[in-house]
């Protein structure tokens, strides 16, 4: 009951916070008074409706979402594997650390441009560029999580000769859960921002492409319509997938 009350309270706070954001935007638009610079929600929402009705918005949302999902899966898979290796093997950590620092400090724009130049203006280059940008931050987070693994539980697994898979699934993974969730949450927001730049620079569909198009036309309303639509999609993904998964993984803490 307490959990249900906490949850409904949390939803109320989130809803109020979003409402405050919309009201703030509304007020700024009114104060500014120039819809070509900052159109209010009452101007942007009909644009969203029209793009939805034409099917354009769904088409470009799907293209961006596909790239985000692909880059996310690749970045998380590679990042978790390398993070585990570096966190558990001092030799590997020493060898790979300079690479990690180099990639952490490589500007996203450089990676994107180089991927387009080397691989070509195609989907592989786009997704690779995004994944390369995200992998180092996942590695750093997972490496910290691996270093913080409970040594006594590792001893238990060794003494009782747990198989590698059972050990990973039931001893290591639950301890890494918060780190994976943290890397995932920050990852998905970073990835979609980079995907937009990738689309802006070299794709012919996706939210980034549309923003590029309306930027050239100085159409702030359409830029906001496409950008905010994708923000809403990401909020829905967070609410429907990330939060329930986090709550499920942490249920033993609240039992």
């Amino acid at each position, binding site marked *: 009951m307490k959990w249900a009350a906490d949850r409904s309270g949390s939803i109320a706070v989130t809803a109020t916070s979003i409402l405050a954001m919309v009201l703030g935007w509304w007020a700024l638009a009114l104060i500014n008074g120039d819809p070509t610079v900052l159109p209010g929600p009452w101007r942007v929402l009909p644009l969203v409706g029209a793009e939805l009705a034409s099917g354009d918005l769904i088409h470009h949302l799907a293209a961006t979402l596909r790239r985000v999902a692909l880059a996310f899966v690749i970045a998380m898979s590679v990042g978790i594997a390398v993070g585990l290796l570096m966190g558990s093997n001092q030799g590997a950590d020493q060898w790979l650390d300079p690479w990690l620092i180099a990639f952490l400090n490589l500007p996203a724009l450089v990676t994107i441009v180089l991927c387009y130049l080397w691989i070509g203006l195609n989907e592989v280059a786009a997704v690779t560029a995004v994944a390369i940008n995200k992998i180092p931050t996942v590695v750093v987070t997972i490496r910290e999580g691996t270093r913080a693994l409970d040594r*006594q*539980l590792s*001893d*238990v*697994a*060794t*003494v*009782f000769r*747990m198989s590698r898979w*059972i050990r990973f699934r*039931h*001893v290591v993974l*639950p301890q890494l859960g918060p780190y994976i969730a943290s890397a995932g949450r920050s990852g998905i927001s970073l990835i979609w921002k980079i995907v937009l730049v990738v689309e802006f620079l070299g794709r012919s569909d996706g939210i980034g492409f549309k923003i590029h198009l309306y930027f050239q036309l100085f159409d702030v309303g359409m830029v906001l319509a496409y950008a905010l639509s994708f923000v809403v999609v990401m909020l829905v993904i967070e609410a429907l997938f990330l939060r329930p998964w986090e709550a499920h993984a942490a249920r*033993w*803490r609240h*039992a």
Partner: protein
Amino acid sequence: MISVSIDSKSIGDTKVLGRVSFEISEGETLAVVGPSGVGKTTLLRVLAGLDTEFEGQVQVPEHCAMVFQEPALLPWRSALQNLTLVNGVSDAAARAALGEVGLRDLANRFPGQLSLGQRRRLSLARAFSAAPDMLLMDEPFVSLDAPLVEEMLELTESLLASRSIATVFVSHAMEEAQRLATRIVRLTGSPAVFEDPAP
């Protein structure tokens, strides 16, 4: 049969164990007593295969179980899963083991929902349900109050009596050693070696 002949064991530059030799047969319980920090846990870690950097020879059975100083349970798995996942025993065998330590009705609880005494009993159930040939116990009653120590001693006595396991029990409390062991040795000095216990 456990056969141990350690010549020396160092941690960093510090020599922790000197020459330590003993043998234990099935059904025998060797108690190793000594002050905190003398090297008792180090000795158990060598026997458990957790520490392989030492000089000497250790022959132990393949099938080993250990009761740690802390219960060392998986907090994100139920009491039942702490047995089935760690030991690979069946649900029925795990439930029987939980019944033996008085936790039959708490099989679906997470460790965090159990009292310290119950967690200690779960740790015992995990070790005994593995049906080991060698059991290592590292001060399993430390930080418990006197009535709980008595309860755990009785439980451990009955569990050991119903099985034929070669056991090494480590404690700083002579009374606990006298209750559980068939043989007692004292680990003392620096580097630590065995000597007969004081009468």
